[in-house]
């Protein structure tokens, strides 16, 4: 088997995963904050931060959808070896992975139901860079306002408008990650 598929997992899984989970949780709890994560070395085109999120959040019970260029043999093999997560269609996925363009159309993803709003997808968006500038964020977890470089303000505004339904998003670039939950109000 290709060594690239087998390499690049957490060196010390309990410690690395706990640190990564803390970063992922803080990013989602405080939208607009940027966290640096380490530990994973996934094959291209996955970034380190995306790899860390996958290793931390995915297991055999979470369906993963790979969009566009991310749907390649190396990425599939790497995710299978390290997490055992099954690959599913966009309509059934718990986690969707890809660039912002590849993830479109966004109405494919689950937004939960009124009884179970948690049965929704989390988008992991691969970006060239994640910076604390651009769109203005307000809402839970933000003291006054925060700023985050979003790919598209209108889509996130529409997503926030159907709260408590909707999907959540992580943005990853190299080893930096930020998040935008559905509860955050976005203004251009």
């Amino acid at each position: 088997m290709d060594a690239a598929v087998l390499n690049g997992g957490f060196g010390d899984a309990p410690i690395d995963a706990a640190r990564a989970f803390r970063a992922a949780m803080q990013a989602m709890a405080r939208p607009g904050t940027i966290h640096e994560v380490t530990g994973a070395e996934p094959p291209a085109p996955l970034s380190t931060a995306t790899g860390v999120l996958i290793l931390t959040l995915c297991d055999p019970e979470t369906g993963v959808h790979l969009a566009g260029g991310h749907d390649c043999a190396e990425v599939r093999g790497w995710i299978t070896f390290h997490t055992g997560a099954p690959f599913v269609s966009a309509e059934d996925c718990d986690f969707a992975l890809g660039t912002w363009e590849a993830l479109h159309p966004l109405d494919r993803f689950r937004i939960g139901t009124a009884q179970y709003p948690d049965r929704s997808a989390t988008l992991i968006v691969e970006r060239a860079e994640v910076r604390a500038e651009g769109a203005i964020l307000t809402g839970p977890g933000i003291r006054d306002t925060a700023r985050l470089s979003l790919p598209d303000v209108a889509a996130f505004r529409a997503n926030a408008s159907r709260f408590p339904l909707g999907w959540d998003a992580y943005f990853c670039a190299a080893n930096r990650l930020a998040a935008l939950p559905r509860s955050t109000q976005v203004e251009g």
Partner: protein
Amino acid sequence: MTEMTARKDWMSLLAKAPPKALAALWDTRETPDFTWLRAPEIGAAMVRGRMGGTGAPFNMGEMTVTRCSLQLDGGAVGHAYVQGRDKAHAERAALVDALMQTDAADRVRAEVLDPLRADMTERAEARAARAAATKVEFFTLVRGED
């Protein structure tokens, strides 16, 4: 035997081997240099069975399994899934699996796998013999019901 079934065969042997028996055979050898791909981790696996070996599958119960993957410095990759919670046992099993894919295969087979298989067959036969001694033969008398 094809390459796949041969590997399946020795991985199955290592998975079921008693840790002490493998340790006794292995620890006389020098451990080759390797890197972890997946450090030993303990989990549970659901064992499924079929009634009579042919019926519909049912869940028999969970068993504790330790797994690990490693890569020798030569490039060979070894995997191990062994019963129980012995991480050192999983490491030895993965090393044997990796070495069986290298030039050292014949030596490993002769020095580790064959004695291990003989040992396990002997244990199984001894146990079967003990059980056979307690076997009761039932037979039915004609009851003349007609």
